[in-house]
């Protein structure tokens, strides 16, 4: 569903991958004297500019995924952005395994923005999910060509040879020939048809499923890793931009002369007015351009900008949430229905009602956004910590009024992203300033810019109501949600949750309740809304996971038992049967069903392994929750101590079923990170808005978890041969409810309005 938003934002949607003819394939892969280049069978025609822009893979013509050089180096392209999930290691792992190359020979090349790769939008927890099969095909194709080349040299059938560890070996004679020596002859071999490829079986995997160290690790421990903030070009200028505190307000006046007087400042430039809807267009503001970052930031302080009016100037998040909470108790617009929840509710013996709220949140990655651009002879080159190089390319081209083919986008390492760096705004700023100055310009966002100029996780209210029968069975269920929609950012009009957002843990609720009503309410937007790690699953899983715990308490059964009762027998849930157009993260329900068995399994797994069903010391307690998102299943058990009004998180355990796992160590690290990300937002995450402007500014008032607040974390990965699911996001949603449930069981206080630090010291 994230890709739907992307497409809404693009003038042209990202093209689907297609097969190409053999002639096109040869044309775009190229054959060079330095070795053989294997292109992708999935590519569409490659733009002409790309051929001339291959310097990043050495002397070879640009290829798509695999290049073998005569010195034995094997270049494997990673076309997805690295932001801490380990994708620059995992993608090459898949290719290298089928290719049968020694890992030491692998050199990872970061792909430029290029439609030929298919989607490069690194979001929605889908890099492995969408590309696992294709990457195996790329590796197997290359290996087969190398085997064919060796077989021809020895004049034996291809069945008599096999590849291993960067060599092709003759089964009968045990003769070996290296990939390096085969590079040139292989370049003359006709690529095999994809359906003729022979793949490894799981038992023969050398890299897939192994905890290979991340390839950027040596650079990261020596200070050599290059992030967006680190790009340095000859003669480069540095820009810092003062942007409107309230969405829609315009620059009325500013003191250019005062800013110019600051030492090191070389120019001041009023940014073009931001059109409506805001989309990814840079905010209204004034850029100060200087010889270094410090000078630019000092000059900015002298600007004294007078801001114009905005229709959003009265937005007050506290008042707004109170309004949502009032609205949410009334009947809303039904988006999914089964039986008659209202009639059944009347017949219930006991009725449980609760409203849950989550505030605005911001990503706050450690590296604030940054982009560097150079504009010359009608062409622009950008270096940015972007999750979406293709979208950046399109947006920069549109902003500069040049063809997309004339924009090159280089992807640096991303110092965290969590969804913020999906937006092209900072890259567009750099491109505009590069064009204006005629020099390379790096736009540095300050932490304050990052906190105040975000695309925020939406503020929300959730209402849950259930009716219990005399024997404590749930016979009626009403759930409602209201929050400003991400769609508003793209159309300036949407004032209610979209089906895409409701597909994130709301319309896909998996419980087996005969009488069900899922409803929404209107909620107009007043600040830019975007996607933050796991998106609307955050508020929906918090409400659902808390409510199950409340029902368990009312029914006097363990929470685990209530989950089993609600999920019912093992079955596949189809929300479409009850009228909801479920998105399922862009996948079909045939490939990725909603499988209650897998959800129950992770819950039972984490409870058993953590000991969450065992007695605890006084003042200590466990809380549990589970959630399916990004087609994976995660359950979390959290143990807290509540003493003297202070909450201490002692342990967190999570169990994840993400199907086939490529790099179990990076799955573990993502789970560890998801626990801490989820704890940060649940314990202390809150953006507030007054008079239309965000009140927080930096890590002092938008706090995130620190080491002393970080618990022991243990991860369990369910062994599975299922198709790979998402990993980066599904760990986050069950964290908040597991925490607040634990707090309730430790001290009896039920927290329904996040964050926890409104009620306890953390």
């Amino acid at each position, binding site marked *: 569903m994230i890709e739907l938003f992307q497409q809404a934002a693009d003038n042209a949607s990202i093209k689907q991958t297609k097969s190409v003819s053999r002639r096109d394939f040869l044309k775009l892969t190229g054959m060079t004297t330095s070795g053989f280049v294997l292109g992708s069978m999935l590519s569409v025609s490659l733009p002409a500019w790309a051929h001339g822009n291959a310097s990043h893979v050495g002397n070879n013509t640009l290829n798509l995924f695999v290049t073998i050089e005569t010195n034995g180096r094997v270049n494997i392209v990673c076309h997805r952005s*690295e932001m*801490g*999930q*380990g994708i620059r290691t995992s993608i090459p792992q898949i290719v290298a395994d089928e290719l049968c190359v020694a890992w*030491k020979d692998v050199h990872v090349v970061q792909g430029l923005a290029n439609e030929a790769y298919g989607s490069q939008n690194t979001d929605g927890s889908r890099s492995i999910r969408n590309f696992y099969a294709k990457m195996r095909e790329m590796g197997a194709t290359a290996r087969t060509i190398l085997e064919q080349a060796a077989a021809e040299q020895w004049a034996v059938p291809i069945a008599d040879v096999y590849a291993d560890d960067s060599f092709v070996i003759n089964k009968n004679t045990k003769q070996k020939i290296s990939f390096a020596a085969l590079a040139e002859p292989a370049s003359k071999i006709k690529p095999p048809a994809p359906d003729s490829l022979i793949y490894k079986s799981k038992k023969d995997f050398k890299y897939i499923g192994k*905890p*290979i*160290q*991340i390839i950027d*690790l*040596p650079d*990261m*421990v*020596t*200070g050599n*890793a290059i*992030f967006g903030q*680190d790009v*340095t070009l000859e003669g480069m200028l*540095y820009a810092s931009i003062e942007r409107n505190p309230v969405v829609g307000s315009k620059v009325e006046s500013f003191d250019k002369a005062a800013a110019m007087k600051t030492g090191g400042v070389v120019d001041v430039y009023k940014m073009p007015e931001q059109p409506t809807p805001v989309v990814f267009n840079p905010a209204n503001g004034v850029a100060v351009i200087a010889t*270094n*970052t*410090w000078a630019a930031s000092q000059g900015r302080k002298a600007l004294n900008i007078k801001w114009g009016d905005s229709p959003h100037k009265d937005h007050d998040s506290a008042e707004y949430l109170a309004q949502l909470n009032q609205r949410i108790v009334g009947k809303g617009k039904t988006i999914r229905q089964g039986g008659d929840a209202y009639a059944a509710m009347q017949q219930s013996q006991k009725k449980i009602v609760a409203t849950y709220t989550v505030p605005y949140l911001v990503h706050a*990655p*450690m*590296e*604030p956004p940054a982009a560097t651009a150079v504009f010359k002879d009608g062409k622009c080159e950008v270096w940015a910590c972007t999750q979406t190089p293709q979208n950046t390319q399109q947006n920069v081209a549109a902003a500069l009024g040049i063809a997309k083919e004339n924009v090159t986008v280089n992807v640096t*390492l991303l*110092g*965290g*992203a*969590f969804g913020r760096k999906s937006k092209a705004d900072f890259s567009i700023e750099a491109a505009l300033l590069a064009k204006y100055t005629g020099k390379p310009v790096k736009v*540095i966002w*300050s*932490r*304050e810019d990052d906190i105040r100029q975000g695309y925020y996780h939406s503020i929300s209210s959730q209402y849950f109501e259930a009716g219990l029968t005399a024997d404590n069975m749930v016979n009626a269920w009403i759930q409602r949600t209201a929050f400003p929609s991400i769609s508003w950012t793209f159309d300036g009009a949407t004032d209610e949750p979209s089906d895409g957002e409701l597909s994130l843990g709301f319309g896909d609720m998996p419980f087996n309740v005969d009488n069900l009503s899922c409803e929404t309410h209107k909620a107009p937007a007043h600040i830019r809304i975007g996607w933050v790690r796991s998106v609307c699953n955050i508020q929906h899983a918090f409400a659902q996971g808390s409510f199950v715990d409340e029902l368990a308490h009312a029914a006097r059964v363990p929470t685990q038992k209530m989950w089993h009762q609600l999920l019912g027998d093992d079955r596949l849930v189809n929300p479409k049967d009850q009228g909801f157009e479920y998105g399922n993260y862009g996948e079909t329900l045939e490939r990725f069903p909603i499988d209650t068995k897998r959800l129950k399994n992770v819950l039972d797994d984490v409870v058993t392994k953590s000991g969450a069903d065992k007695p605890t010391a006084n003042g200590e307690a466990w809380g549990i929750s589970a959630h399916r998102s990004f087609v994976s299943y995660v359950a979390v058990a959290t143990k807290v101590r509540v003493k003297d009004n202070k909450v201490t998180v002692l342990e967190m355990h999570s169990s994840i079923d993400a199907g086939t796992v490529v790099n*179990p*160590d990076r799955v*573990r*690290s*993502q789970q*560890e*990170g*998801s*626990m*801490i*990300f989820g704890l*940060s937002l649940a314990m202390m995450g809150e953006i507030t808005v007054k008079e239309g402007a965000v009140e927080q500014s*930096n*890590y002092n008032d938008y706090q*995130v*978890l*620190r*080491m*002393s607040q*970080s618990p*022991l*974390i*243990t*991860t369990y990965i369910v062994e599975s041969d299922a198709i790979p699911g998402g990993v980066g996001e599904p760990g986050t949603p069950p964290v908040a409810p597991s925490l607040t449930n634990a707090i309730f069981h430790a001290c009896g206080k039920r927290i329904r309005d996040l964050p926890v630090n409104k009620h306890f010291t953390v």
Partner: protein
Amino acid sequence: MISFTLNDKPIKVDADPKMPLLWALRDLLDMTGTKYGCGIAQCGACTVHMDGTPIRSCVMPLATIAGKNITTIEGLPSDASHPIQQAWLEHNVPQCGYCQSGQIMSAVALLESNPNPDDAAIDDAMQGNICRCGTYPRIKAAIKDAAKNVSTTNVDFSLAKNAGEKA
């Protein structure tokens, strides 16, 4: 002109004495290993050593470092042979990696002042370094391993241990 010692080499910088060391390192000296994260000494991404003590370079004006010894991440062994770097490799600590220069500089300073830190001492020393990816458990484990000085040679780069998993 401000003179100081940077990674054991004498250096002179011609800049506004109020400019924080961070920006002199990054923009004037092209040493980008030290990172910007907050600018107000809240996150620790910019941590360097001044005469062996960890400081936040984002709030340290150049004027105050005249004559001092400054060590940055680039001052650690470029072959990653320092026990802290080795422990970081062994535990596959980083995710995005952005905060890790600062984390490593804080950890190196900790072990120099306290060769055997307990959990509380580690929490205390590392409290000023934020990691948004959530590498805290591995950082803590890596510091303890470095303190024990175990397995600091011949690290196998090919396969990581199952870091983060309890024994």
